[in-house]
């Protein structure tokens, strides 16, 4: 009976019982032990890796040995890079390194492909084959966290060691305090940053604002040091969390912008090569390969973000494939035109996923511009934009003009409600954010009106 139901996949599904099995992970299969090769000395209770059939299986790898487990993760990383052209040989990429397992693995894997590229180049006759460059950025947030200075010093030492102990080619390390986006004087910047965060009442809003500031800071490092791509370690679990948080914050429209392999809405495009790996897998890899992480810097999440991550932990325990399913749902939403690189060429047409993505992207080629929120850079829905436009009528202060260029979610959770904090908030914002607003809106609102008109037109064309 159950087969009939799960087979159709169209049920009301209130039970959601057996439909979500994902064979990729978690589920250990006792039939994986096959017949052990006679060459290895094995204890009778040992299970063998189902891939190489030589080494012993490591727990929670889904039946793999340590080496095959690493290879499988590396393969996912490599696959996303090649399928979506995330890194090309002429690139100079900046890795955003937080010290957590995900960014640690990114660093490791990027280093590996860089070394391979170097070898190939060295082997080539004229040595003209270019090798992409790699830099590492660490954003020092000690200005706003309560980390003990000893711990921070130790972490910085570890950080330098991690980067310097990687073999050639040398990777430049940029350790930049987050307050540097406010002022060149770090003490002044620190005060401004803290004052700014103090004007935000909502704890979730505070945390999210800090996150947007971090991105500004990364973009600044990339721009000033001539990197042309920013690599983030966002993994499936992180993205699943973001999908739910965004839904809860009313950001359903902009959600697909944030979860793609490529996000080119920034001056320096952002790429996510670990998008298909689970946090659990990356943690395990760090443990198995003794990759040092800077756990002391881990900040607990707060408010909505904390609730979402706890909810997801519960769900993941109930069904280990849940995070993947969530990301897969969000993948089916239509991405934005900036979710690919301009020079993307069609290389491999054999992959069905790639074809599907192409189809999804096509209708939006005709609408290349989106209005982006001045704070979080999320594209704003046309209905919200009309509402925003009506708010612009008769606005006077800097704050109200700025506020009108923010998405409803930022308006709610970040912008201060009481008039006394408002102008202060605006005066403290880093220049990048305020210019973003005035760039878009300008002195008059013609641009905005044009945008709305465009949106409405393209809407009827699409037949949506």
């Amino acid at each position: 009976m159950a087969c009939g139901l799960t087979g159709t996949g169209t049920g009301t599904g209130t039970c959601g019982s057996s439909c979500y099995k994902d064979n990729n992970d978690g589920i250990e299969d006792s039939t994986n032990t096959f017949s052990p090769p006679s060459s290895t000395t094995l204890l009778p209770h040992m299970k063998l890796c189902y891939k190489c059939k030589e080494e012993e299986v490591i727990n929670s790898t889904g039946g793999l040995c340590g080496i095959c487990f690493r290879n499988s993760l590396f393969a996912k990383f490599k696959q996303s890079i090649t399928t979506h052209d995330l890194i090309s040989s002429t690139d100079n990429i900046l890795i955003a390194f937080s010290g957590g397992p995900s960014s640690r693995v990114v660093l490791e894997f990027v280093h590996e492909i860089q070394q391979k590229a170097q070898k190939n180049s060295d082997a080539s006759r004229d040595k003209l084959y270019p090798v992409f460059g790699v830099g590492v950025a660490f954003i020092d947030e000690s200005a706003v966290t309560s980390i003990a200075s000893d711990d921070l010093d130790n972490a910085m030492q570890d950080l330098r060691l991690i980067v310097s102990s990687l073999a050639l080619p040398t990777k430049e390390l940029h350790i930049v305090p987050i307050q540097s986006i406010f002022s060149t004087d770090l003490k002044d910047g620190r005060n401004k940053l803290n004052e700014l965060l103090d004007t935000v009442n909502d704890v979730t809003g505070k945390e999210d604002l800090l996150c947007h500031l971090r991105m500004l800071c990364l973009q600044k490092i990339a721009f000033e040091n001539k990197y042309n791509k920013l690599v983030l370690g966002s993994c499936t679990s992180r993205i699943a969390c973001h999908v739910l948080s965004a839904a809860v914050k009313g950001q359903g429209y902009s959600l697909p912008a944030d979860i793609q392999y490529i996000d080119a809405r920034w001056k320096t495009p952002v790429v996510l090569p670990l998008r298909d790996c689970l946090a659990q897998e990356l943690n395990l890899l760090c443990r198995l390969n003794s990759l040092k992480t800077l756990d002391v810097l881990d900040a607990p999440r707060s408010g909505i973000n904390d609730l979402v991550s706890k909810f997801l932990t519960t769900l993941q325990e109930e069904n280990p494939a849940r995070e993947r399913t969530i990301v897969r749902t969000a993948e089916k939403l239509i991405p934005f035109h900036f979710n690919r690189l301009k020079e993307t060429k069609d290389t491999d047409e054999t992959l069905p996923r790639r074809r599907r993505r192409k189809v999804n992207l096509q209708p939006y080629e005709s609408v290349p511009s989106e209005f982006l929120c001045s704070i979080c850079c999320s594209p704003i829905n046309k209905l919200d934009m009309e509402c925003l436009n009506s708010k612009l009528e008769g606005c006077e202060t800097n704050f109200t003009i700025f506020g009108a260029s923010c998405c409803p979610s930022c308006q709610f959770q970040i912008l201060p409600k009481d008039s006394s904090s408002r102008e202060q908030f605006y005066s403290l914002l880093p220049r990048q954010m305020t210019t973003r607003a005035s760039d878009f809106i300008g002195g008059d609102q013609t641009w905005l009106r044009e945008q709305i008109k465009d949106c409405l037109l393209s809407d009827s064309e699409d037949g949506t």
Partner: protein
Amino acid sequence: MEDNDGKQKKAGGRLCSICTQRKAALKRPKTLEQICRECFFDVFEEEIHKVIIDNQLFKSGERIAIGASGGKDSTVLAYVLSELNRRHNYGLDLFLLSVDEGITGYRDDSLETVKRNEVQYGLPLKVVSYKDLYGWTMDEIVKMIGLKNNCTFCGVFRRQALDRGAALLKVDKVATGHNADDIAETVLLNILRGDIARLGRCTSIITGEDGPIPRCKPFKYTYEKEIVMYAYFKKLDYFSTECIYSPNAYRGFAREFIKDLERIRPRAILDIIKSGEDFRISTTTKMPEQGTCERCGYISSQVCYIFSCLHI
């Protein structure tokens, strides 16, 4: 209580932010306003009226069945709809439509509540039972298939039973009591199970316009808290027990999550619905096929499987 000075003091002497006369009785989750009981009745009813008008849920002269389970949502819906129908001259013929799944100790009790509502609100009641429609009660089905998947069975059966009951009543539309919390929960569940087709549809206020009988949700933007408060203050007669056959932990997690969210940010419920409405879902996304049952000729995507499974 209002005549008691000692009690008034307790609410900090807070007055209703609408009438500024009477003592505030609740905090609205939607607006965080503190309002008195009388103003609450007004805004609650008028908001639903506005939703009905703005979305053109009904046309004058239509026959409307209210899906009535005896629970809080459908009881309040029946009460408010008959009230608004009178007050604003909607010109609707309202009926109560109940499904008797045949679950002893659950549906038989709640049906008694619906029968009292029939008298209290003067709305004609029609009960359709699984036993009559399918020859099986839910008790008998559970006895046969056990507790696994029974919610799926029951859900599919109930959907169809409502349609058939609506056809018998010759109504133009069925109004159901799904509230904002329910819809937010459904949005989350569809994200969690990767069901993009349903994710696209689940926030629509009217569904099934292409099907035999459209359904609408006048409580789409109404908080569960307000529905329960309304029922309590109006002393409405409703039945509240969880179905004895619903073991679904996973749905429970989602519900609990919504309630946790509401506590720290009441607006999150409406934000989830907004997200659901704004999702960029391709219109070419394949929708589940609607087939026709070979046995009864009824439009259905799934019932045939179930019937063949049960060897009915």
